């Protein structure tokens, strides 16, 4: 047991902060992720994380609190995606890719300008991977508030989102503003992803968005069960990851902790793979699921 719970774990303030923020982030990401995976928008979710990170670099450059930079860029990117708004999955991915490319280009610029201003050569690493152990306590209330907001929006929209995903025509016939609902969801996704990127970095943001949700969708039926299962998986994976990262300080090579992102990512993928023991995969036929080259019978709403 000694090797699992290393000395000083619970009395360490960074760990307590990490657990608190990590829990909020995990729950929000998982619930939002259920809809992201179902709607086939994993790429958008990842791209928004990268673009949000760019915003953080920009904010850092002009001396603003990074958090607002993350949030602003994430939301603006979501609005752009919705405005250029292409309903077909493939066209949507290309648009997302272009927005991502522009965002990354800006990131390159901001990081470069940052090195001109001060000596921040490690910026690239932390920008990508974040550091859950180095969150400023002043931003914690804002982080939690944003997480709650995103969560509330998604839960409120959950039914109309599911109905729209199931059949946009039926939803439209019943008076659901399908396009507006999609836009609102994207903004909630942007908020959630911005929040997780600033806390744990873009890589982990994507991992916690997609992994627990995809895992839950394989094993849970029904919407409520899927969201709860995803949240539980996300939280467990985060806690374990924090624990192991803290412990790894004492593992070889001594005195150097392994990054928490590695542990969480590894655990997320492991959890997903474990579901294949329970539910072996059926080979998917092309043309059904939007695999590359598949002619998916997509339908759209609107005159």
């Amino acid at each position, binding site marked *: 047991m000694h090797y699992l719970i290393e000395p000083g774990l619970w009395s360490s303030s960074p760990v307590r902060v990490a657990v608190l923020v990590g829990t909020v982030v995990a729950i929000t990401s998982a619930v939002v992720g259920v809809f992201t995976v179902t709607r086939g928008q994993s790429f958008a979710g990842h791209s928004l994380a990268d673009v949000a990170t760019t915003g953080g670099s920009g904010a850092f450059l002009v001396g603003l609190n990074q958090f607002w930079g993350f949030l602003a860029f994430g939301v603006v990117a979501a609005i752009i995606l919705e405005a250029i708004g292409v309903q077909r999955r493939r066209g949507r991915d290309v648009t997302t890719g272009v927005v991502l490319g522009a965002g990354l280009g800006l990131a390159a610029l901001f990081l470069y300008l940052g090195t001109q201003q001060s000596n921040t050569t490690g910026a690239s690493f932390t920008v990508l991977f974040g550091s859950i152990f180095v969150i400023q306590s002043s931003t914690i209330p804002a982080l939690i508030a944003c997480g709650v907001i995103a969560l509330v929006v998604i839960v409120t929209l959950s039914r109309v989102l599911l109905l729209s995903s*199931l059949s946009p025509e039926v939803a439209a016939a019943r008076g659901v503003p399908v396009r507006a609902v999609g836009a609102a969801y994207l903004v909630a996704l942007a908020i959630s992803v911005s929040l997780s990127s600033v806390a744990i970095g873009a890589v982990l943001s994507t991992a916690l968005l997609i992994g627990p949700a995809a895992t839950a969708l394989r094993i849970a039926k029904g919407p409520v069960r899927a969201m709860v299962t995803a949240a539980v998986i996300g939280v467990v994976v985060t806690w374990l990851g924090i624990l192991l990262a803290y412990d790894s300080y004492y593992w070889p090579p001594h005195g150097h902790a392994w990054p928490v992102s590695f542990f969480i990512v590894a655990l997320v993928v492991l959890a997903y793979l474990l579901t294949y023991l329970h539910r072996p995969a059926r080979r998917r036929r092309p043309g059904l699921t939007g695999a590359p080259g598949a002619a998916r019978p997509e339908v759209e709403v609107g005159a």
Partner: protein
Amino acid sequence: MSERKAPAADELLRLDGITVRLSGREVLHDVSFAIRPGEFTGLIGPNGAGKTTILRVILGLLPPSSGTVTVAGAPIGGRRHHRRESVIGYVPQKLLIEPDMPLRVRDVVALGIDGNKLGVPFPSRARRELVNETLRMVGADSFADKRVGELSGGEQQRVMIAHALISQPRLLLLDEPLANLDIRSAQGIVAVLAKLAREQQIAVLISAHDMNPLAPVMDRIVYVAAGRAAVGSSEEVLRTDVLSRLYGQHVDVLHVHGRVVIVAGEDGEDTGSPHDGAGQPDPVYGSGVA
């Protein structure tokens, strides 16, 4: 040429002189018909004739270039209309289902109650009972807990009928529900719908390109071809002269062992447009109110 009568009090739906122009092309011309409670109406015609356009106009998804749609006595203009949403239940042909969609059959049906509202419903026994009862009505209770992505075509149709049914519509609109089904499943669906029409006085408007599975239960036909419609009973509409005028070329209507087959005649025989015979009130074309 078409008689426009004042809407009768118990008409659930009435189309008057609906014309739709898309991209400069006239897709529907002067289509009129009405539907009363409990009537089982087939919207029949070949693919591309305009059936789906008619449905979209009724649902408010496509504004007509001219003409009016009246639902339960109140004229509908434009997109959203509360009355339409409460009177008409829509069953689409196909669902966009991914295998990992987190919806069971009973979840989909529950969405029919209030899936268009924001917020989360409070789970109650009453809701659950309503869902179960509706599932029983369509014969879907045996697979109520299956994921909606794992259903066969026929099972999916039943689920979507239940979804539309649970909000207690007075008119069910179904878009080609039988198109991809085998005969047995198709007959099952038709039986369910006929029972609903009979026992609960729910009107059914069902579009199909093959009328034969519907023939035993159809009260009336709206036959659509080349953007025009002929309305009436099977005997009135499914006749060589009527359909030839509709198609604008000679077709033969053959009755074979109780089934109806429509066969194209020789090319070029123009039997004139349905608009010949000026001034004569036409019982078949136009308002179609028998």
